[in-house]
């Protein structure tokens, strides 16, 4: 009975824990296991190679490029979406018809499924018949570009601009969600604080930096963690638009893992990629907590 009383909580948690163990912890552990083998699942040949596959992959410039792509994408996404969302939220933090409409418009992309967003943007960015190049031509931007020797923006079709185009699409898609989270955070900041600052004749810029941003820090921190993780896990857009091309310039970790393991039948390499991705995300999250958690204000 005493045992039951002291371990009751564990008992009640057991069903949920079992789920986590079977569907999350076990597969992660098994990925580690596979990554130390050279395993051909089709023929069934399995040989222990230790860190052999790690060495092989980390010496492969194409794989390094995939990691670099992923990190560049992640940094740009987080920096741009969080910064933009902060300013948009500050602007939207009023109640009028215009603001409500703008809020809806900004949030809409978040509801639309990624596949639809991606198909839409593939048309928008089509070099020949796309909206973007058409608008740029009408506005005369193409003549400006011609000064720099760019004949036509190829967007997703050129290795130099493809990753940038992915970032544009990603920002458009996630901005609404980030804005909404920050907006909710702003609206929960008590009005008296601003009133007090107003009595002290603080400028609105000063109020923003001294009151809004510090009190928003829990929301900002949350967005940082969520955005870092989700950017690392980008898959659908790569799979639908580019399959990693042109020339590997938009290949990112999760898509590479999928392609290598399931399309090229190199399951060991794919597991090495998964393990490295896990380590990178873990490291990023850990350093976020380490560097920033003492700067976050909780009321």
């Amino acid at each position, binding site marked *: 009975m005493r045992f039951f009383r002291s371990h009751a909580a564990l008992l009640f948690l057991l069903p949920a824990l079992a789920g986590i163990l079977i569907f999350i912890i076990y597969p992660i552990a098994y990925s580690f296991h596979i990554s130390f083998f050279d395993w*051909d*699942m*089709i*023929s*069934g040949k399995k040989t222990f190679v230790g860190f052999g596959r790690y060495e092989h992959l980390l010496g492969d410039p*194409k794989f390094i490029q995939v990691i670099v792509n992923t990190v560049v994408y992640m940094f740009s996404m987080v920096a741009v979406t969080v910064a933009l969302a902060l300013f948009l939220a500050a602007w939207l933090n009023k109640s009028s018809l215009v603001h409500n409409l703008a809020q809806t418009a900004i949030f809409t992309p978040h509801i639309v499924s990624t596949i639809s967003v991606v198909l839409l943007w*593939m048309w928008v960015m*089509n*070099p*020949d018949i796309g909206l973007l190049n058409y608008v740029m031509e009408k506005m005369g931007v193409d003549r400006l570009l011609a000064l720099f020797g760019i004949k036509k923006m*190829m967007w997703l*079709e*050129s*290795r130099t601009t493809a990753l940038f185009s992915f970032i544009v699409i990603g920002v458009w898609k996630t901005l609404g969600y980030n804005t909404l989270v920050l907006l909710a955070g702003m609206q929960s900041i008590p009005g008296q604080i601003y009133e007090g600052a107003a009595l002290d004749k603080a400028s609105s810029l000063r109020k923003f930096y001294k009151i809004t941003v510090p009190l928003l820090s829990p929301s900002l921190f949350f967005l940082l963690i969520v955005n870092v993780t989700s950017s690392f896990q980008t898959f659908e857009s790569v799979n639908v*638009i*580019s*399959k990693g*091309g*042109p*020339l*590997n310039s938009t290949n990112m970790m999760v898509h590479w893992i999928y392609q290598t393991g*399931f*399309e*090229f*039948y190199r*399951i060991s390499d794919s597991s090495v990629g998964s393990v490295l991705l896990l380590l990178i995300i873990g490291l990023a999250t850990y350093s976020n907590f380490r560097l920033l958690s003492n700067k976050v204000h909780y009321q």
Partner: protein
Amino acid sequence: MKKLVCSLGLLVACLLFFAACDNSRDPAPAAGSTGSTTTPAAPAASPSAATPAAGAARPFEITFWTALTGKNAEALQELVDKYNSSQDKIRVQAVSQGNYWENGTKLQAALVSDTYPVMTMLEVSQVGEFGLRGALADLAPYFTAVERARFVDGLVKQGVMDGKFVAVPYNRSTPILFYNKDMLRAAGLDESGPKTWDELRSFSQKISDPPRNIYGFECPVDIWFIQAGIFQQNGSVFTSDMRRTAFQLEAGVKLVAFWQDMVKEGSMKAPLGQDYNSWDVAMDDLVTQKVAMIFSSTADLTGLIEATDGHFALAAAFLPAGEKRASPTGGAFLTVFDKSSDEQKAAAVDFIKFLTRADNDAQFSKATGYLPVVKDALDEPVLKELYARHPQYQVAYDQLQYTQDIPPIVGFREMSIIIQEELKAAMVDTSVTPRQALDNAARQVQNLIK
């Protein structure tokens, strides 16, 4: 106590219900079966199969994973049903696993966990991946020389590797030249289409009008057309021992230079988009009359005929010849896993023989647009009538005498993506020389050859 009795009662009721459900899965007795369990070459020869009255014996079940969806999956299911009701010894359960790659993913996991199906459909490159690794059963002992000779030569070649007959051609396709006869006529060109590379280029130059966004020729930068072009110039993709790349040599340079020159002079449009997206772009451009000639698969023929019907005269021709004619093949094969038991293998082969019977193959070919895989299917009235109405189908079939394919090699899909990507980049940025693009690709592909 009362509660306990209630819940126990409920449990028993549930169990009984599920047991009843399971019973209902017993197949209905096959009425009037003609039976062809072991000797499909002589259909009416085994009347024993047609005696359901004897019957409490459960049919032998085999699972068949397919990679077809929509209309094509329905056409196949129709034949599966026909087979199941034609005899009561074997029952085939066809399960669609999505597309070729999804099916491949699941097969890989199924082989490891011993939950693999007896037989599956595999795309050409997958036949190499699974076959060269020894996962596929050698079907040679199950087919007589006469039975094997029925298969169309150009379609059956890739199913043989290391001397073993591991894959039976089924839903196969090949690329042909599709063109808009009206646009050719308007430009005063030969309506039977270009016969050679030079004609393709001169035709395109006459038709193209880049300022109006009209082009003579368009083709996806796909491994299919890359290998076709190289073979047509008497080159090869790999050396004959499959140990070294050979596509970067003279024939490859000729091909890339030819495409690049056409793109530069504005007579060819390199379609944008990755992978199959670029195929859709080319077909769209043909249908909307922005492009007069494209290369595409025979599998698209039915759709293109429907889309262009009443708008313009759609015609088909052989791929234009370089030094010689050559055309690749694609699509999928039927395969049996080597780990299956002998009884399962025999049952699977029986079903495969049923599917490739002339009448059934003709029926499937007509419903899907895939090529007929056995020669005698062409004598079937359904195909005769179809070919008379749409001679484009006949063109595709006749071209099969010129097929030439890359022998199976482990890692082919990854290699082909590398080649496509490098050559495509050379089409988008024509300042990259053919040699640079090909050498870049060759270096990476060579690293993948095991």
